[in-house]
């Protein structure tokens, strides 16, 4: 895949994030600790997959090579994916899933709020539709993080471990590279450095209420959104997610 067009890359980042996280969250379907959470997680996964259709649909149009959103989702390999490393991380226990969700949701909401002011009307329209869904996502995941953190000794220990595990994946979301800078300069996407300040204030408030300690480190894994080096988990996820289109090319329903 060419990386010559930063706008195409940016749209793939948005769509790949929601696609990969949507798939991850859907893995809970039928396995959640209680029925109510099972349905809630499935709803969130479906919201994310719906947003993927819009982002990758626009990406395919912008690319102009006759590919569709489905082609981008089902027929690219690991190195072509532009999703951040955090979304491909395994579900782990319920706390790990919800911590990953909360950190992503908080970034996602700020990003979408910024994108509603994008000078690209198509981007602003997609963001305006998605932002309502994501407001609910962050409310739910935030409440659950607080409930587990400020819960029993066992739930506190597990969700603190999840925060320690996930925190090094936060930095990538906010570290601008050439694509982010081009999008900022073009007025398409918001300033990640500014976003990070709001993010840290919001996350700190929730963690304080959850009695959780944010790791005192800014070390950040990277290589997801550039496609340079995904973790081993993405390949396994794609094997599962893309299996049907690979085994039965063009299969439809």
């Amino acid at each position, binding site marked *: 895949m060419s990386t010559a067009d930063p706008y195409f890359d940016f749209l793939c980042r948005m769509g790949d994030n929601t696609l990969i996280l949507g798939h991850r969250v859907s893995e809970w379907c039928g396995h959640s600790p209680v029925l*109510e959470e099972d*349905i809630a997680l499935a709803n969130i996964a479906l919201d994310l997959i719906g947003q993927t259709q819009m982002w990758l649909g626009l990406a395919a149009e912008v690319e102009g090579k006759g590919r569709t959103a489905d082609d981008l989702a089902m027929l690219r390999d690991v190195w072509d994916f532009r999703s951040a490393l955090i979304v491909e991380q395994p579900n782990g226990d319920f706390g790990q899933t919800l911590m990953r969700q909360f950190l992503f949701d908080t970034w996602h909401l700020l990003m979408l709020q910024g994108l509603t002011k994008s000078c690209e009307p198509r981007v602003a329209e997609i963001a305006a539709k998605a932002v309502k869904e994501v407001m609910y996502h962050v409310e739910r995941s935030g409440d659950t993080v607080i409930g587990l953190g400020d819960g029993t000794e066992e739930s506190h220990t597990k969700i603190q471990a999840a925060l320690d595990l996930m925190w090094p994946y936060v930095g990538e979301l906010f570290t601008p590279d050439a694509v982010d800078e081009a999008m900022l300069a073009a007025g398409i996407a918001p300033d990640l450095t500014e976003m990070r300040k709001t993010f840290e204030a919001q996350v700190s408030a929730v963690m304080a209420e959850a009695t959780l300690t944010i790791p005192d480190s800014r070390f950040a894994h990277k290589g997801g959104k550039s496609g340079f080096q995904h973790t081993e988990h993405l390949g396994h996820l794609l094997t599962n997610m893309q299996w049907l289109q690979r085994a039965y090319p063009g299969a439809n329903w």
Partner: protein
Amino acid sequence: MRNEWPLWEVFIRGQHGMSHRHVGSLHAADEEMAIKNARDVYTRRNEGVSIWVVPAHHIAASSPSDTGPLYEPSESKVYRHPTFFDIPDDVGAM
């Protein structure tokens, strides 16, 4: 020891409905979580515009064995039904 969250009864006011209607029950740790769970379990196909949740233990119910004394006296009293009046159209739904 029971590890389940408390049970809540869920009432939803539909898009065009005038009153909340009982739709089912669910488990949740507190009332905020009960409303969120109700939103996810019972309104995912756009069924409602307002949600009530009530702790199930706060609902007092009649006993099934009391049906005779409770309901039978009304069975043969057709004059209790206001079906003998013409209601003007302007009144709307009653």
